[in-house]
Structure formats: C-alpha cells, structure tokens
C-alpha cells in the first residue's frame, strides 16, 4: 500500500468505526433504555406492561406490608398525585423507610410494579436527581401544612 492510500484507508476505517459505534448504540438504546416514571405517569397510562422501567417516588407512610414468606414486601409509591403498588422480593436496601424516597427497577404487570431491584438511597445527603424536584415539592407541602 502506498502511504497516501494507507492514510486514506486508516481515516475511513476510523470514521466507519465511529459510525458503527453510533449505529450500534442507537439500536441498543431503542430496545434497552428504560424510562423513569412517577406514579402520575403510570396513572396517565405512559408505561406499557412488561417494559423495563424505573419507578420513583416516596414510600407511602403506613403502606409497607410484609408477606408471610418473610422476604417479600408490598408497598405504595406516591408522588402526591397518584399511587402505584409495588412488590419486591429481597432484602430492602439501607435507609429504605416509609416516607422517604425510593427508586425501583422493574416492570408493570396488571397494575402492580414488580421490582427487581430497589436502588439504595445510600446517604441522608444523597438524593437521586430524578427525585430532587419531588422532595422539594414534598417539603414545600409540609411547610404549608404547618
């Protein structure tokens, strides 16, 4: 190969690689990206059954129920406008509490959210950005009540 041609081949190879990466990524994102929904979104019918997604909101006070097998819990997630029932089998993460924020990964089935994982809110200071606005609203609501 002549040096000139070699450079041409290399440059086109690099461009093709970048193009392939973008196409692959777009293909993957179309089928695999999961949306973040709040209970209000779900009430509005945005989520399809069986589609992988994340659900975020506050754990409704007094809603956490332990099932007899000891490792499954049911609870309600709320965003102040709507509620979504959630079922989770597993050890709930640190700082999972009634009245505090939670993000769950899973899918909707017949009106219930089946959670595969509950994302840990690992620190009092740490709040998933998606919940930031929600928490602010929550606080605002509380001060109004007072």
């Amino acid at each position, binding site marked *: 190969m002549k040096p000139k041609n*070699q450079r041409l081949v290399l440059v086109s190879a690099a461009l093709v690689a970048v193009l392939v990466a973008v196409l692959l*990524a777009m*293909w993957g994102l179309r089928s695999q990206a999961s949306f973040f929904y709040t209970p209000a979104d779900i009430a509005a019918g945005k989520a399809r059954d069986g589609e992988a997604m994340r659900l975020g909101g506050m754990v409704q006070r007094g809603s956490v129920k332990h099932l007899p097998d000891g490792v499954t819990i049911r609870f309600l997630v709320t965003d102040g406008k709507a509620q979504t029932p959630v079922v989770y089998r597993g050890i709930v993460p640190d700082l999972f509490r009634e009245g505090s924020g939670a*993000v769950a990964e899973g899918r909707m089935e017949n009106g219930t959210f089946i959670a595969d994982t509950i994302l840990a809110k*690992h620190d009092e200071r740490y709040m*998933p950005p*998606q919940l930031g606005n929600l928490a602010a609203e929550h606080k605002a609501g509380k001060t109004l009540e007072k």
Partner: protein
Amino acid sequence: MIAEAGLAALWLAAGLAAFQFLLMILSLRGAAEVGRAMRSIAVVQGALTLIAFAMLLIVFARSDMSVALVFKNSSAVKPFIYKLAGAWGNHEGSMLMWVTILAVAGAFLALLSHRTSERTLLAALGAQAVLALGFYAFLLIASNPFSRLWPAALDGRGLNPLLQDPGLAFHPPTLYLGYVGLSVAFSLAVGALLTGEVDSKLARAMRPWVLGAWILLTLGITAGSYWAYYELGWGGYWFWDPVENASLMPWLAATALLHSINVLAARGALKAWTMMLAVIAFSMSMVGTFLVRSGILTSVHAFAIDPERGTFLLALLAIYVGAAFTLFAIRGATLKEGAPFELVSRESGLVINNLILTVILGVVFVGTLYPLFVEAVSGEKLSVGAPYFNAVAGPLALLLAVLVGIGPLLAWRRETRPVFKQLPVPALLGVTALAITIILWPAMHILPRLGFMVAAYLAAASILPLTGRNPLRAPLATWGMVVAHFGIAVALLGMASNAAFTSERLAIARPGEILSVGPWQVQLQEVTPTAGKNWTAVEAELRAARGDDLVTLAPQTRYFSDPPMETNESAIRTFWNGQLYTVVGKQDASGAWQLRLWWKPFVTLIWAGGALIALGGALALLGRIWRRRARHSADTDFRRRGYA
C-alpha cells in the same frame, strides 16, 4: 495556621504554573535557554502541591474542626486510617489529590524525560502547566478545601460509612494516578503536535507513562469492582453504573493507545492516530472526573451536588478538549505518514484492535451520556443499564478476545507465513468447551456459553507467542503481553462461570434452621448485637457445611450514627472453586431473620484475571526499563573504552 499554609502553597503553585506557561510560549518562539527554568519551576510546583496535600492530611489527622471540610466529612471518633482516608473521600479533598498528582507527574516529566527532543518536552511541560492552571482555578475559586469554619465545631458530621472501608483508602488514589498519568501522554501529544516532532522517539518517551497509567487504571477498576461486590452486598461485580463507566472509558482509550503506541515506537507508523488516542484517553479521564464530580448522575458515588462546580468543570473540559482537537485538526494533516504496511501484518492487527476498542468506547460513551442528553433536550427521564451494555458491548468484547489470540502471531510490516497453522489447538479447545456446555447445560444462556468457548480458546492461543522458541529467552515485554492476554481468558472464565452457575437463596430463618444453597447447607446459629468504634451492629452466626468442609461466617448489618445510616456487611468465604457469599437482612414480625446466600463458582477468577492483566503490564514496563538501562550502560561502556 496549617490550613492557611496549605492554601498559600496552592496559590504559589498556581502562580508558578502560569509562569511555566508563559515560558513555554517563549521557548516555542525560539528562546531555548528557558528550558532549565521550566524544569525547576515544574519541580517546585509539584513540591508545593505535595505540601498543600500534606497540610490537608494533617488537619484531617488532627480532626481540626475549625476547617469546614473536616467538619463536614470527618468525626473525632473515627479510626485513624479513615480519618486520613477521609481527606480524599470528599469532593474538595479528592480534587486536591487530583491536582497534586497532576503537578507531581509534571515534575517527574521534567526530571526524567531525556528521550524526547528538548523543544517537544518544553512544549509538553507548558501543556501540563495549562492543565494544572485550570484545576488550580477550580480548587481556589469553586472548591477551596481549606476554608475555615467559624466558630469551630465540637465534632464533625462523619464520613459516609459506605466509604469507611479499606477499599476506600486505596481505590480512589489508584484510579486518580491512572487518570492523571494519562495527562502526561496528553501533554506530550500536544507538545509534539505543536513542534511537529511526532516520531518513534516521542512514542518511546510516552510509552512508560501510558503503561504505568494503564496498569493503575486496571488495578483501580479491578479493586473497585471487588469493593462494590463485597461492600454493597448485592452480589454483583459490575453494575454499569455511570461512575464505573467513568473509569472504564479512560481504560478503553488507554488500552487502544497502549497498542498503537507500540506501532509508532517500533515502526514509526500510525502517527496521527496515536496522537488522537493520547488526546482522547485523557479527555475521557476528564469526562470521568466531570461525571463524578459535577454530581449530575444518579449514583452512589456522586456526592457533589452543586451546579456551579459542574459548570466550571464542564467549561474546563470544553476548553481543553476543544483546544486539543483544534490543534489536532490543524497539525494532524501535516504529519508525515509513517512506514507503510500490508493488509496482513502486526500493524493491521493492532489497527483492528484499536477500531474495536474505539467502537466499544463509543458504545459505552453514548450509553452513559444518553440519559443526560435526553433529559436536557426533552426533559424526559430515562436510564440505561446492564441490558444495553451487555447486549451491545458484550459481543464486541468477545470478538475482540478472539482476535487477541491471533494478532500477536503476525509479523511486522508483512506476514507471509501461514499463521493459522498454529491455531488448530486453541480452536479445538474452544469448540470442545462449547460442545461440553451444550451437552451438560443445554439451558445455559448464549453469552456465558460463548464466554466459556472464547476463554478456553484464548487461554491456549495467548501463550502461542512463547512457543517455538526458548520461552526463558523471550523478552520480558513479550512475557508481559502473554500474561495480560492470558489474564483476559481467566477473567472471561470467571464471568462466564458466575453468570452460568451462581445459585442464590433468599429466605427467612430462625436460629437453628438450615437453608441450602448450591452444594452448601447453611445453618443460622444465632444473631447477636455487637459494636465497633463508631457503629453498632447485629451479627448473624452462620455455620456452612459441604461434605467435609465446615466453616462459620458472620455477616452483619451495621448502624452508623453520624451520619445515620445502615450498611450490610457481607461475609464471604473463598474456596478454590468459588465463593460463599452471605448477607443478613432484617428481622420480621415473627422473629425470623432474612438471609441472602449465594454460591458463586469460580467468581474469584474475574479479579484474578484483572490482576494478571495488570501484572502483564508491569512486566512489560519492567522489560522496557531494563532494556533501556542495558542499552544505556552498553553505550557508556562502549564510550568508556574509547570507541566513540
């Protein structure tokens, strides 16, 4: 006084960096005599940042609560080692560490690099000074680690307990050394583009830095993966968390650079290509720092939620990356093309390696940033996780692993021998492994199945470069390559085995009850309260039996008071053929305890593979240094005898 001394050292260092940059402009205009001054300034600048960092360590060691950062991130009752580690377990401290490493790397570049031309070295020192300057500004304006708290507090708020772990003490520094080591490659590339001296000499000067940074990144990622595995108590070793991706992306770019730089050093080819990769590798380090430090991600690690800092870092990133790419666009095309090579040659093999790594990097990059992009544009929130990365990057990684077995067999410039004659044995091993998985485990998923096949093939293929000659006389660098490539096979085997054969048990148990998981019978003995220096815990005593093996494990749930938080401390027992992983959860209303048990056959091979890959890098680095020494002393010997 100590905090003020640290701050003063930082300001001085920033001033020197600005001076160093001005001298670089002079040197590019032909003032050759500034060289010595620049070297000394770079060294003093490095020393000053070390002093600043030492001052930060001292205020943390003394729990000086009049320093705001100590108050926010430490407490007097913490074990000493975590007081020290707390110094970099927070935003400001970790950025100071970043800058310290950057400046010290600049100092070493000034002291050690005699292999490049003086002009390129001075330009590189100037580039390093500009990099440092931006981060000094960031520290001094937006994240001063030494700001005082008035009145001083009695005790601090404590360190995030998840970070109170030996892993924290070493994981971030290792990664940072890797990230910032790549800054030297970046600066050398920028310097060489400025002077136009992109040649094999430059590649040889750059190679130890790239190798060293790459070894540390490999170790950092491996250690981080193990830390997440045992500390988070979820039993997984890689979560495709954006922060993990932030460390993976520079590693992918550095891996590509590591391979292409050999082509430039040995054959003088792939000039523009290698410079581009050097720029990309450090750009990825900065992207990673931006992602982690700006706090725009949903992540365990992202604790700096502050838009001002995010904007500052983004601006720095845009300026540096933008300037480097502009320089590349102007100068890249004027570089003379290097030695030509045929389609079937070592060079081509390395180009293909680079292309696949680039595609993987692109896929990870897009997947990591896509949610941010979508949210900025449409306000819609979404997340991209393991399903995407496994489906898109997994097959590419397997394809790359197949080619890793072939590339090293090719000759430079032009391959005329029938290389594939050496491959039947590895190929046969791969097919046999595939056949075994099909016969014994017909229900296995496709990815682990392919993983077993490729691992078996690559384990054999990777050692082929040592056959057909006396392996003891092969160069150390060749051994390094073989060990690293063999490490890929080992890690792959661990991942495939973990994916295919892990058994999991989640149940409640009362004391005395027995649960089975995999080949193990696990009995809950009792659950007792216990306490450490700044935590209390409940500890479960588990007795596990398998045939004649009898072990006890003690997983805990710890409650920290400052800040208030619970963590699951898993208990793990390692055997030659796998790990038994246990977590204790909460007590239910009936008095039974939640237990989560895993048996993970050969999972340890994942990290053993990572360690082998890093060891391979270390052997190659040693080999290069040794050979240089040997050549150097032979040269002086030659001269001393009066031949030259």
